[in-house]
């Protein structure tokens, strides 16, 4: 099982979160507060034109994230 960042993932495929990179305390905390925790399943719905923004489907709702933030989310392939 490989662990990669969310922004390296493919569209329309379910992934399981492995852990959140806590280098940036405030943002990583906000991610956990929004439901991005270990073993949660998510999926990329759409990439933006320049691929700097992602539309994520997680736990029943849709969220838009910057690529730099998505990089903090480590998922299992």
């Amino acid at each position, binding site marked *: 099982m490989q662990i990669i960042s969310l*922004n*390296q*993932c*493919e*569209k329309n495929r379910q992934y399981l979160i492995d852990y*959140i990179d*806590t280098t*940036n*305390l*405030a*943002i990583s*905390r*906000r*991610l*956990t*507060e*929004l*439901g991005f*925790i*270990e073993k*949660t399943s998510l999926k990329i*719905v*759409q*990439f*933006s*034109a*320049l*691929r*700097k*923004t992602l*539309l994520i*489907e997680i*736990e*029943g*709702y*849709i*969220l*838009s*994230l*910057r*690529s*730099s*933030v998505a990089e903090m989310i480590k998922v299992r392939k």
Partner: protein
Amino acid sequence: MKKKFSINSTKFLLVGNPNTGKTTLFNSLTKSNEHVGNWHGVTVSEKEKDFIIEDTRNTLVDLPGLYSLTPLSYEEEVGADYIMNNLSSPVINICDINNLKKNLFLTLQVAEINKNIILFINTFKNKNKIKKQIINTEKNLNKLGIKYFIGDANNKKDVLLFKNLLLNIFISKKLKNNLLNFNYLNNNNINLIKSIIVENCYKNNLDPNYMVTRLLENDKKAEEKLNLNAQKKEYLNKIIKKNNFIELNKKRFNFINNLFEKNEEKIIYGKSILDKIFLNKFFALPIFFGILFLIFYLTFFSVGASLSNLLREFIQNVIGGKFISWLQSVCDIIWIIDLFETGIIGGVGTLLAFLPQVILLFFFLSLIEDSGYLARIAFLFEDIFAKVGLSGKSVYTLLMSFGCGTTATLTARNMEDKNAKIKTALLTPYMSCSAKLPIYAVIGGAFFGANNVFIIFALYILGIIIALLLSLILEQKFLKSKEQSFILEFPAYRIPSFIRVIKILWENLKLFLIRIGTLIFTLNIIIWILQSFSFSLKFVQTNPNEVSILQGIGSVLAPIFSPIGFGNWGAVSALIAGLAAKEIIVSSIAMINGIDVMGDNMKNQTMRSIIDPAAAICFSPAGALSFMLFCLLYSPCLPTISVFKKEIGKKWTFFAILIQFLLAYTVCLILYNIYILVEIWEGLKILICFFTIFIIIISILSLINRIKNKKFCNYNCNKCGKCKK
């Protein structure tokens, strides 16, 4: 008979995630009309209002949307602090029935420190339509132990039932809230931590229970507020792990997940087939520009123009004509008649006639916001915005600036990054506001006729492009943004409710009329005085040798503006007047050129007058274009300047004004001279050709770029080194 209210007044706090219907519930409970929006960041400070349940008078506080009690932005900090300072007040926690799991996180955080909490589960629609969903929700919430109410915040009956529930639980205390057991907190040394910080809490007026949970979440700001000495800090670092928040939040979500059945039917909130069109790789941007163009067309032409003309006729013939005739019959003092005819009816009347168009503009803006399309726009432009140091959250502020820049700037408070907030505020004046609408309609209309729709569209787009370039420069040199998170929830598409839209229109109508009736009215009279009387206070019309004050001032400054195409005193005077409010520019032109209220349509008269070389203010086509551009760029109006001072400080306000003047002059200089050159070679056609070719080139380049990237990379990581992954 006046109702007597009991003295006991309870303060209720309205708390919830952004976009859950807090403000709708606030309005329903207090029967007021605070602005509701389908975009978080619309409530930017607490709002307190009284509301009545039976014979008790209570207070309701509407707090900004919160995802958690650990704030990231200024508006969240306001909300979290308020909750901390009012832990004895009962909390109404509003949740979205479609998004319960995420909403319940805040519920847990608040319930951990404030036992007096009740949930309002907003259904956003008639309860009968979602019976199954409600049954499932009830099953889940019954396990939670917190009292709840499921209903539609917009429905009067539901709100009444909810009020009764509030009465029984918190006021007459007939029902009790169940005791909640948060067993996930038990292993966290809470009492030990409390004993360490309790002294500092009381010294700094902070609640110990609240502060304990903040510390367990590694909230650095909260820790600083405690002012702990080194020894205590070290002790805490030993007890609380560096990333304790991960464990804690995991436990909270496990607690929440245990309330729900494992394989429950999942409606994904925010997901829609419509996004296949609106976010489509190829169609998204063309659709966006198409919608924008449609809005322009409807506002400036067709519907908007027809309504405006009707109103103008009414003002002129019914009000103007009859009143002036009567006045002339009872009074023979010329300057009084002129004051009413030219100053008031001519000046203010010209502006009032644009009311339908302004309202239409606000209508379309509110449709975009209310329907959920705004979030899609933010997503589409996020990449470009990121490059210039803004975030998608700026989209709301900038979009609202097309209505009124002053109120739009206030919404920038929800930005997490201070520099991004300053940049966004600085850019609002370039989003041509509704006050400039009459300028384009009248001046553009006089010279460009049917082509005016393209001219106006181009002006708006030019304003946006200049704004983006300015932001880029600021990002590189002066106002670098920290890394911003840009986490944005996607709302579901919804058909804008008729009532909601009418409320917004009424709100803006009121603001428009108040502004016209007070500020604009006064300014118009001042300008009328300045242009009707000379320095020695002689009435200019009856003393042809005298020069009006305005002409005196304007003539001095006029030569400065010759290189950019409008070096006459009238145009310059109008611009000076426009420093106070942009609406005055057109009414000044009408007044200075002298229109006959009893004559032909005022707008047509004004348009004809500025072509007439004999008039006080006249333009050449090139000059007209230059003038419109100058108005677009040159300076924020007085109300905006005062908001700037409050929101971004004196230094940046001064900077904003200076940059705008320099930019306005430079851009007009360039464009005016290009236009003159182009005029020699069959004018407008060439300009439009250039513009079109420019857009085609950009599109081709970006398409090539995309194809190039696709050819080599299958892994979509954006680091393209043609890797070996």
